[in-house]
């Protein structure tokens, strides 16, 4: 699946997107963050304040306990400041 990063999360990750292939045991957004953080120091640092980070699956906002099965694209980003 593809992960997108936006705003300061993109800056901290130093990339706007990447392809990942988490193991089957990783079934939720939270577990995806855990798994990435364990394998990627930059990610762990960028997601330090995890509670404020928002996520979407295939263009739909989701909570961190949302299942990621069948997700094509997962996006992570700071709270929105549009309008």
């Amino acid at each position, binding site marked *: 699946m593809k992960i997108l990063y936006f705003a300061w999360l993109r800056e901290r990750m130093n990339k706007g997107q990447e392809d990942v292939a988490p193991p089957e045991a990783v079934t939720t957004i939270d577990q995806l963050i855990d798994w990435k953080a364990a394998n990627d120091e930059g990610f762990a640092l960028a997601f330090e304040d995890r509670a404020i980070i928002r996520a979407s699956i295939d263009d739909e906002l989701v*909570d961190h306990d949302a299942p990621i099965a069948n997700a094509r694209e997962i996006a992570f980003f700071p*709270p*929105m400041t*549009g309008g």
Partner: protein
Amino acid sequence: MWVRIQREPFDPGAESNAFFATDGAAGATVTFTGLVRSTPDKPIDALILEHHPTMAKKQIERFATEAMEKFELVDIAVIHRFGEMKVGEVIVQVMAASPHRQAAFDGANYVMDWLKTDAPFWKQEVTSDGAKWVEHRKADDDAKNKWNTETPPKSV
């Protein structure tokens, strides 16, 4: 109902007039126009908006559709820009038409409140010190809660 997300500046008055020509027959139209602001105590040179293109369009279309259903609207339209914009340029314009003025006010207000917190745009303020991400305001979360929407507009 339509939503346009674009990089190019647009003429807010010309957009309003086009909307009146289509939907003005409804009687009441409320237009919200948000412009790039620079104040003496917090001057900025420009604003840069980053966005998630597909999700931004989808989310704003959802809020606009909900506004159509929730209030008695004849039509609602949203234009939101991304990229770099100068002080005084328009960032966003929402236009809501209804036979009833309160519905028109509520429709535009509802879309703005949800858009602020749940549409994927992120602002950077550009000053002589460089570009700095704007922090999300708690007041914006409170604003959307006034609608008592039991099912927040997100799925899953």
